[in-house]
């Protein structure tokens, strides 16, 4: 009985979560007429034209590659630096910790508007506007605060004795960080990394301003299907589906790595 209720709840959740996705995917393989019909057309002849169009579009493919490069490198940098900083912070006294954390969180507050304009002018001077590293640097910078505060949370759950034990065993700080904290907080690291990747993968405004032809990322590319003469629904939804797919697979793969109750048995008391 409880089991059934549980599965019903899960099913309801999945339906709510997936409905818009269903709509997007369905639209991408529907004719325009079917897509906008009310009552909705549930049975239709799928058409793959939109995918053909999107996939044969060099701009879209390049944007895809750009997004992969930018979001993965930037997120990796952000999580790496964030993890290092969080490791340093978690050893400090409560006041040092909370002061730094407040500062870090306050960095996330600034709306993109504030730094995009100065960055644009600076990058224009340095002729970096068509350079992946500009985007990577900006994205890494804005994700570091998030990474620090999340990882600080996960690191705080690691018993202090583990660090003590590693020190006694002769580990240097970096080794403790690398061999003990990172693996033990793996679930948190993965979750944080996923979020950083998604934040950058989907970021539109900064990308719009700071990318050039060679560095344009997917959100900008996709948004170009919004013309003032209407939305090109077919290609847009097809592109959106293609954009989501790798992230979902990635999400599934990496989340499988998480072991629950990792620290169980490590400490008595």
């Amino acid at each position, binding site marked *: 009985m409880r089991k059934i209720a549980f599965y019903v709840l899960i099913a309801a959740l999945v339906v709510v979560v997936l409905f818009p996705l269903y709509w997007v995917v369905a639209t991408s393989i529907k004719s325009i007429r079917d897509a906008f019909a009310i009552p909705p057309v549930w049975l239709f002849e799928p058409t793959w034209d939109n995918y053909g169009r999107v996939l044969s579009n060099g701009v879209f493919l390049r944007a895809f590659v750009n997004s992969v490069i930018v979001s993965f490198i930037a997120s990796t940098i952000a999580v790496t630096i964030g993890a290092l900083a969080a490791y340093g912070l978690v050893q400090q006294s409560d006041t040092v910790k909370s002061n730094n954390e*407040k500062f870090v969180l306050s960095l996330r507050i600034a709306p993109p508007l504030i730094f995009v304009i100065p960055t644009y002018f600076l990058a224009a001077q340095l002729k970096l506007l068509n350079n992946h590293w500009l985007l990577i640097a900006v994205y890494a910078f804005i994700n570091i605060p998030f990474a620090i505060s999340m990882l600080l949370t996960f690191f705080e759950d690691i018993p202090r004795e583990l660090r003590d034990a590693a020190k006694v065993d002769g580990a240097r700080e970096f080794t403790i960080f690398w061999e003990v904290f990172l693996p033990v907080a793996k679930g948190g690291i993965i979750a944080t990394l996923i979020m950083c990747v998604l934040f950058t993968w989907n970021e539109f405004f900064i990308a719009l301003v700071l990318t050039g032809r060679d560095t344009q990322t997917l959100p900008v590319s996709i948004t170009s299907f919004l013309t003032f003469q209407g939305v090109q629904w077919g290609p847009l939804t097809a592109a959106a589906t293609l954009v*989501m797919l790798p992230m979902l697979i990635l999400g599934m793969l990496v989340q499988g790595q998480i072991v629950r109750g990792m620290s169980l048995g490590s400490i008595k008391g």
Partner: protein
Amino acid sequence: MTKDATTLFYRPVMVFMGAVSVVVTVYVLWLTVQNISLLRPGAQQFIGLDNYARLLFDMRGLSALGRTVLFTVLATGIELVLGLSIALLLDREFAGKRVVRALILVPIVMTPVVVGLTWRFMFDPSSGMANYLLSVIGFGPVDWLGSTNVALFSLLIADIWQWTPFVVLLTMASLEALPGDPQSAARVDGAREWQVLWHITLPMLQRALLVVGVIRAIDSIKAFDIFYIMTRGGPALSTETLNLYGYIAAFTNFDISYALTIAMVLTILTNVALLAVYGLAFRPKKSG
């Protein structure tokens, strides 16, 4: 003594981030005391605090601020509660857990522009799914996005849909990191599942939830894509937040200085709020 090594881990990062933020802040402040417009290159002058004075009496800005607060509080609150509930629901072993976990990510994975368009379409009064479903169960059409009373809440729904998974993902990660022993002990001690949750699990998740909440709050204040795509602040400004107003001032009116003034004030106000929340919520625990 042994602390020296650990400070090396965060000091350089903090110093670098601090330096960058100081430079940017000073630069932005410098821009806000002029009247720079992208359409009048070279014509800017120093105008002191005029932009700030202008914002102080800008009814549009002030009501946008109120709306921002309302939206942020509602979005953060609902997303936290909902996200936590879903995380707890999923925090057990069942067939298909991995798939469900990945599917939960769908809303954040979806490009925000597409999310906005999708919801805008679903909220379409005549051909949208929302009203279609209502009509199936016998309710009249709701003017989701065209009514000044409803539009903000429609956006809220879309925002909740998109960002609750963020809370779910991070909460699940925290839940998974818990040792699990104290929960067992509480069950032995006669706690019902909700009591285990309330007395043991939640306190242990407290910090994670707070951080997630703070980040969600900060991001809701800055919410942009959904607003921009779905209503652009309309109808009758009923969904214009301060951040959106700043964006419009910058990229529709090209009034860079005023836009940055808005953004700066928003940043300062948010910072003040953050410090207050932080002071309340993260009261440092006793040493140990």
